[in-house]
């Protein structure tokens, strides 16, 4: 049976002058019950079979804007009572729950638990009032929807709950969730009806309804706006007429909707038009979604199955045996964790395993933090890898999607604590054939243990598309049948269960030499008999190459297209060096390497030149300085740009370091001492850092005082170090007057240093007026000026 929702409530109350601008709409449930009941009646007369309570914003978090947070129960119960009074048994009542108006951490500043609590309180009151359904609507963040859905399920496991998200014109919610991802995630968490409302009109919601219908088994609901709004004469106007709206209703039903209604801008007339338009239609004919394991993030769904390309589970977010990563996690820093997430994703990982197994920390805190940080920066679905149920729950709660739990064995505690969490948070389960009776030896023993896990899981409400089966790989050094039994198990998994399979492979070669060869060979064998989602290091080229070749061979890479693309790219010869470096041309080769910024080669070239009798002076003057002169000219002529100059500076640095290493005495003297600083009040130091780097690698001794430096500190450093040059940098008009002050102080203190100034807002005129000796428009010019100024002051012999 098709169900007809009602339409907008607030706009009707506003146009009747009942609801004043800026007033709380929900308080009318208590203060003006007649008006609310009247609107409900209008919709019932128009044909609504389900009406929504006037409680969209009646959570404590929303009511607190009107200082009504203490009236949640009263307002929600009254909302249901009003609807029931209007309905008189003629239609059902859905308790409306709108968004709380804030984002859950880390997208926003409110915790999952606070949001859950607010929804729970509201849901509880709506159920107490007697609502037939609870309707979570207009939600733009999947994580908020998850909190609300959990709250409703906890308030009453029996009440049917409708989950409607709001999609923008790009067919995603504002926080990036697509309808496929929403359907899969919410169905797994136990939503009864899944849908879309608000934001756009029926035309835009039509394809969304279709995607929702194709990706879940739940009934689909849809409540579009009456088109996109315009502001006319200070009034928000929705352009779609009732007839226009009605004309879309049959299409929405054909696409899969069995609950149809309206949102902003719709009126009883719109609902009547919808009712008439679908009067002769019956429930949509839906095709059942494929039985496949799906995992989701907030913005992406991936499927794992025998008919699909192999999916890689990246194993690198795991501190086991990685001291640096473990130490970082222990201190609460997650930069390396995030780095692994980004780099594994870029390396082709489809799922990321997250393990926070660091001794001496609260793993649940680390897991929550890791899951939040990772899910903000990569769209890759996550696998939560822990043996600690508290850490598992913290991770599942924080994850805005459908995660994989790694892992559930047949050990009693795992079954008891992990499976209810999988059901509650809609996660998939990696089943590990391990029991309290020990390790299985044969494929059949693995099957027996897995059956126990799956039977228990189904008792907790999990379904066939919630499982992936691990093969539990043992080492062949200890058991010669270990590999064969895994291959047997893979075949049996397909025939006995039909669920996808996974494994961590590297254990197979433990204790053997040349482990990569064993691992990759075993990998190919497993792929041939049905391994669907290996847990591997995505940076391992041999394994990735094996996968490419195996996919071409087993038909998962059609006609070997991906393989060809990759392999032909590999076959391209790297360009050979244009000239052969000899003892005669090595100075020129060093010079060219500096000009092109090839720092990888430079140390070797310098070492070779020194060994072959070239003096450090010859290298410095004829190669390094000569090269930097050309770099400077090219920069001045805009043939090259700053990053290219910096590459040359890096190569210079490598050259100087090598000379210093081989002949430490040769670089004892510098071209001059430079004290450099960004002036007081200015926190920009990129330009100053560039000038420092260039001066240092042109033979100057640098005393870099940093940014936001007190005048006195600059003067003191100049005097104490007998500076030849003081470099001052200011980026903003608000700080450039500090340059005048520093120069005056330097003179007053008797410093003889030459002052060079620079920075975005400075000009030659300003430098002159401040009493500077020179103005440098950029770092390259600064080096030239510094050389000229110091040459005037003294004839240094750098390097001898």
């Amino acid at each position: 049976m098709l169900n007809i929702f009602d339409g907008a409530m607030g706009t009707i109350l506003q146009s009747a002058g009942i609801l004043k601008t800026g007033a709380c709409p929900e308080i009318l449930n208590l203060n003006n019950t007649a008006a609310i009941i009247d609107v409900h009646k209008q919709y019932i007369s128009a044909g609504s079979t389900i009406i929504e309570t006037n409680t969209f914003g009646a959570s404590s978090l929303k009511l607190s804007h009107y200082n009504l947070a203490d009236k949640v129960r009263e307002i929600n119960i009254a909302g249901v009572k009003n609807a029931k009074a209007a309905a008189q048994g003629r239609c059902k009542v859905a308790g409306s729950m709108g968004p709380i108006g804030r984002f859950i951490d880390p997208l926003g500043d409110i915790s999952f638990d606070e949001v859950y609590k607010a929804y729970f309180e509201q849901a509880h009151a709506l159920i107490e009032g007697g609502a037939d359904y609870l309707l979570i609507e207009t939600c733009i963040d999947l994580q908020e929807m998850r909190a609300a859905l959990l709250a409703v399920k906890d308030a009453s496991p029996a009440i049917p709950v409708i989950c409607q998200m709001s999609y923008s014109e790009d067919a995603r919610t504002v926080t990036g969730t697509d309808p496929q991802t929403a359907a899969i995630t919410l169905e797994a968490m136990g939503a009864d009806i899944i849908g879309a409302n608000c934001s756009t009109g029926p035309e835009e919601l039509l394809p969304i309804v279709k995607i929702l219908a194709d990706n879940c088994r739940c009934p689909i609901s849809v409540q579009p706006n009456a088109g996109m709004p315009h502001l006319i004469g200070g009034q928000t106007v929705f352009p779609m007429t009732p007839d226009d709206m009605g004309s879309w209703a049959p299409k929405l039903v054909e696409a899969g909707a069995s609950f149809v209604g309206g949102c902003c801008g719709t009126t009883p007339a719109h609902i009547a038009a919808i009712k008439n338009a679908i009067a002769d239609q019956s429930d949509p004919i839906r095709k059942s979604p494929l039985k496949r394991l799906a995992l989701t993030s907030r913005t992406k769904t991936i499927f794992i199955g025998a008919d699909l390309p192999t999916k890689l589970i990246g194993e690198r977010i795991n501190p086991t045996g990685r001291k640096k990563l473990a130490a970082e996690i222990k201190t609460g820093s997650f930069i390396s964790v995030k780095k692994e997430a980004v780099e594994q994703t870029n390396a082709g990982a489809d799922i990321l395993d997250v393990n926070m197994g660091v001794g001496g920390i609260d793993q649940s805190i680390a897991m929550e933090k890791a899951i939040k940080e990772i899910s903000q920066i990569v769209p890759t679905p996550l696998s939560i890898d822990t043996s600690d149920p508290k850490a598992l729950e913290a991770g599942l709660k924080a994850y805005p999607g459908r995660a994989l739990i790694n892992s559930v064995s047949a050990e009693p505690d795992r079954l008891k604590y992990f499976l209810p969490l999988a059901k509650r948070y809609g996660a998939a389960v990696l089943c590990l054939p391990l029991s309290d009776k020990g390790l299985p030896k044969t494929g059949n023993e693995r099957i027996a243990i897995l059956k126990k896990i799956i039977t228990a899981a189904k008792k907790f409400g999990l379904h066939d598309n919630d499982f992936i089966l691990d093969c539990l790989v043992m080492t062949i050094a200890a058991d010669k049948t270990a590999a064969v039994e895994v291959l047997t198990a893979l075949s049996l998994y397909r025939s006995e269960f039909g669920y996808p399979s996974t494994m961590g492979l590297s254990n197979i070669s433990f204790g053997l030499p040349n482990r990569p060869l064993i691992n990759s060979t075993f990998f190919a064998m497993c792929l041939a008999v049905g391994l669907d989602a290996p847990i591997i290091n995505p940076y391992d080229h041999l394994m990735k190459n094996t996968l490419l070749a195996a996919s071409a061979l087993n038909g998962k890479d059609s006609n070997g297209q991906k393989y060809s693309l990759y392999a032909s790219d590999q076959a391209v010869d790297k360009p050979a060096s244009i000239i052969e470096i000899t003892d005669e041309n090595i100075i020129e080769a060093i010079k060219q390497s500096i000009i092109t910024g090839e720092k990888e080669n430079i140390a070797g070239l310098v070492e070779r030149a020194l060994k072959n009798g070239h003096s450090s002076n010859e290298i410095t003057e004829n190669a390094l300085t000569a090269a930097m002169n050309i770099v400077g000219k090219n920069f001045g002529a805009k043939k090259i740009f700053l990053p290219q100059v910096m590459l040359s500076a890096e190569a210079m640095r490598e050259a100087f370091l090598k000379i210093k290493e081989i002949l430490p005495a040769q670089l004892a003297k510098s071209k001059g001492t430079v004290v450099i600083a960004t002036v007081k009040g200015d926190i920009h130091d990129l330009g100053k850092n560039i000038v420092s780097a260039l001066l240092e690698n042109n033979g100057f001794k640098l005393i870099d005082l940093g940014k936001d430096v007190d005048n006195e500190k600059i003067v003191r450093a100049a005097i104490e170090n007998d500076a030849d040059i003081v470099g001052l940098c200011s980026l903003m008009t608000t700080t450039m007057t500090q340059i005048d002050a520093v120069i005056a102080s330097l003179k007053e203190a008797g410093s003889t240093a030459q002052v060079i100034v620079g920075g975005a807002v400075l000009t030659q005129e300003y430098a002159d007026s401040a009493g500077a000796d020179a103005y440098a428009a950029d770092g390259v010019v600064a080096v030239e000026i510094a050389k000229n100024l110091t040459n005037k002051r003294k004839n240094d012999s750098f390097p001898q």
Partner: protein
Amino acid sequence: MPIYNPPLRTVDIKETRRYAGLSAADFSEQAIIAACNEMVYLAEPRGSWEMYNYDNIKGIVSASVPFRLQGSKILKHLSHSEKVILLSVTAGSNIETAIEKNFHEGSYTHGLLLDAAATAAVEQVADGLEKNIDISIKPLGYKRIWRFSPGYGDWDISCQPHMLRLTNASAIGIEYTSSMMLTPRKSVTAIIGLVPETDPFTPQRPSCATCPQKNCSSRIQ
């Protein structure tokens, strides 16, 4: 005030190239991509905003303590706006440490490219916040015009304390120095005018061609 921390999953390579002054240069794409990828895990995007009524005759933002805008260009820019959004965004302070570390270790180019990627990142954070703001303004029948920041044209940066106060920017860790700079350094405040959808007024974003900073390395030729 609403807080929204837009996820930053990629950093715009083209914009990073431009901010690094490399628009016209033949420079390793890989090096730029590496900086952009690194920025994804170094950045800590945060955003905070608020909508206010705006008196476009007097140039006053109707906050509890009214905020008068000063500068002919900003006033002209907002001349059709009935409401305004004030926003603050930051890419966080982790990136400062990373840039300094690179310079200290002699990886000057990567440090420079990270700085450029961070500039691209903070603009993307502001873009992400704008997209989020659309859900609040579209049902009201407004469209937004391009965001205008203190320091553009003749709108003096001395207004930063007001911008931060009216966006509750301390909640996302942004502060200002006595010289009106924002910390963390890769932070931005801006005002966005809201014009009725039906008003054809759409001010043109000024191009590099009209900017007096002729030597700016980010200038689009």
